[in-house]
C-alpha cells in the first residue's frame, strides 16, 4: 500500500538527486522575478510604430501572412549544409532495399562473431 508521503520522495540517482516538485516551485519563483524585472522596463514606447513590430532579421513583412511561415525543411538549413558529407553517407546507407538491410545484419553478425567467438 502506497503511503501519501511516498509521492513527495526525492529521486536519488546514486551521487545526485532530483525533486520535480522543488524544481516546479523554483521555476515559479524564477518567473515571478522575471515578471517583476520586466515590470521595471520602459513604458514610453510608441504603439503601432517600428518599436512594436516583430524583428524579421531585416526581411520585409508580407501582407499575405501565409507566406511568412517557415517550412520544416528550411529550419536548421545551415546545420545540415555544414554536415553535408555526413548526411550523404547516411543517405547512401539508407537505400530502402531490403537485401541491403539483411546485408547490414550479416555485417554486424560477423563482427559479433569476431568479438565474442574470437574467429579471426
Amino acid at each position, binding site marked *: 500500500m502506497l503511503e501519501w508521503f*511516498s*509521492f513527495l520522495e526525492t529521486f536519488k540517482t546514486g551521487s545526485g538527486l532530483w525533486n520535480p516538485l522543488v524544481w516546479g516551485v523554483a521555476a515559479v519563483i524564477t518567473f515571478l522575478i522575471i515578471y517583476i524585472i520586466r515590470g521595471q522596463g520602459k513604458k514610453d514606447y510608441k504603439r503601432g510604430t517600428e518599436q512594436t513590430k516583430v524583428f524579421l532579421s531585416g526581411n520585409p513583412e508580407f501582407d499575405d501572412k501565409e507566406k511568412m511561415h517557415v517550412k*520544416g525543411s528550411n529550419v536548421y538549413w545551415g546545420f545540415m549544409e555544414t554536415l553535408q558529407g555526413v548526411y550523404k553517407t547516411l543517405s547512401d546507407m539508407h537505400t530502402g532495399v531490403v537485401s541491403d538491410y539483411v546485408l547490414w545484419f550479416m555485417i554486424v553478425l560477423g563482427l559479433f562473431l569476431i568479438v*565474442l567467438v574470437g574467429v579471426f
Partner: protein
Amino acid sequence: MFFDNLPALAVAVPLFGAFLTPLISKIGDRARNVFAIFVAVFTTLIVFLLANNVFTNGIQTYVFGGSYQPGETVIRIFFEVDGMSAFMAIIAVVLPLVAVIYSWGFMKKETGLDKYYTLILLMTTGMLGLVLTGDMFNFFVFLEITSISSAALVAFWVNKGKAVDAGFKYIVISAIGALFVLFAVALLYGQYDALNMAVLANSIQYTFLDKMALVLLLGALAMKAGIVPMHMWLPDAYGYAPSSVTLVLIGATQASLYGVFRVVFTLYGRQLTTVVNQVPLNVLLAVFIVALALATIVVGVLMALKQSNLKRMIAFAAVAEIGYMILAVGAALSTIRVDSVTGVTMLTGSGEMALKGGLFHIINDALDIGLLFLVAGAVYYATREISVDKLGGLARNMKYTTVFFLIGLLAVSGMPPMNGFASKLLIYESTYQINPILAIIAVLCSILLLAVFIKVFHSIFLGPELKVFKDVNETSKSMLLAMGVIAVVIVFFGLFPELVVNNLVQPAADALTDMLKNGLYVKAVLGVI
C-alpha cells in the same frame, strides 16, 4: 482458481478474444469495438494482478503439462514471471489498450476492421507470451506470432503501396531474425537436451556452440529491436503503419529488447565473468553494445533532423531512444565484478543505476514516442497531410492535440520535469562515472533531439493560419482520450519518479541482478522441477 492461473490467462484471454472478434463483428461495428476494448481492459487487469503478485511475493512459475515423475519423459512448458517479465508485461498490455481506444475514432472510416482488431489482439498475445515464457522454443513461437501479426498490421493500408512495401520488409527482417533465434535454440537444445531457460542458464558452459548461440541470439534480437545499423526496417514500418498500430509496434520492438536483457543477464548471466581472449565476457559485450548504442543514438538523431515526413521523423527519434536504453545496458555490463571476499557476481553502484536508468527509459520511451505517434495520427486524421513542409498553424484549431505534442516533445527530449528527464538523468550520471565521453555524447544528442521536435512543433502547430487547413477540427473524443491518458501518465511519471522507480523499475532491476548474485531465476524453476 482465477488467481492461480494468471500467467496462463494473460495469454489466453487476448488469444481467445482475437478469434472471437470476427464473430462479434457480425453483430455490428459498435459491438466489435466494445468487445476489443473489453478484452484489452480485462487482459490489463489480469497483468496488473499478476505484476502485483510478483512484486509482492517474488517469482511466479506456471506449468503447462503433466507433473514430473522420475524416469518418465514429460512434455511441458514453463511460464516464469519475475520482476522483469512483469514490468515488460505491463508495457505490452497498456499500449494495445490505448491503441484500441484510439482506433475507435482513428479507424472508423476503414474497412476490414474485424481483421484489424483480431491482429491487434494476436499481437498482444505474442508480446505477452514473449515476456512471460520461461522456455526458449516458446520464446521463438511467440516471437513469430508477434512478427506475423505486426507485419500484417504494418501493411493494413493495402491501398497505399508504401505500407505494403514496409510490411514486406518487416516480414523479411522478422523471418530472418526468427530463423537465427531458432538456430540458436537448436544449438542449445542439441547440447543440453533442454529448452527451459532456467535449466539452460544452469547448464551453459560457454562452449564454442554456446558462443555461437549467443552471437545468433544477440544479433537477431538486436535487429528486431532496431539497433543501428540494423534499424532500417523500423522507420519504414513505424512510418507507414496506422498510428494506432505504430503504438503497439513500439511494444513489440521493446519485447525484442527484453529478449536481449533475458539472454545476457539470465541465460548467460553465470558466464558473464568468463575470460575470453584474456578479456572478461562482460567487458567484451559492454564495449560492443556501447559502440552500437552510440551509433544508434547519433544516427537516429541526425536522420530525424533530415526527415520531412512527420512519422518517419518520430521513427528515427525512436531509434535514438533505443540507443539510450542499450547504452545503459552496456554501461551496466561493464561494471560486473566478482566480489573477492564473498565470490558473488554483482554490479557496482553505477552499474545498478545504469540498469535502472535503462529499464526506466524503456517505459518512458513507450509512453513518449507512443504519444508523439498518436499526435502524428491525429494530425493526419484531421488534415490528411503528414509532411512538415505542408502543415502549419494547426494550434488554432487543434488546441488539445498541440498540448499533447508539447508534452510528448518535452518528455522525449529529456526536459525537466517530464519522465524522460528522470530516466536520462540516471543514464547520464551512471555513464559519466564509467566514461564521461559517453555521457557528453548522450547529452548532446538529447539537445539535438529537442531541436528536432522544436522544428516540428514550429512547422506544424505554430505560424500563421494556412487557408487549406482553415476548417480543420480537433480529432475525435476517443483519440483525445487515448492521447490524454498517455499524457497524464507521462506527467505523473515525471513528477513522481522515485515512486515509479521504487515500485516498477526496482523489481525489474532486482530480477536481473538477483540472477547474477544468487541465480534466483534458476532456483525458482529447479525448485518446481
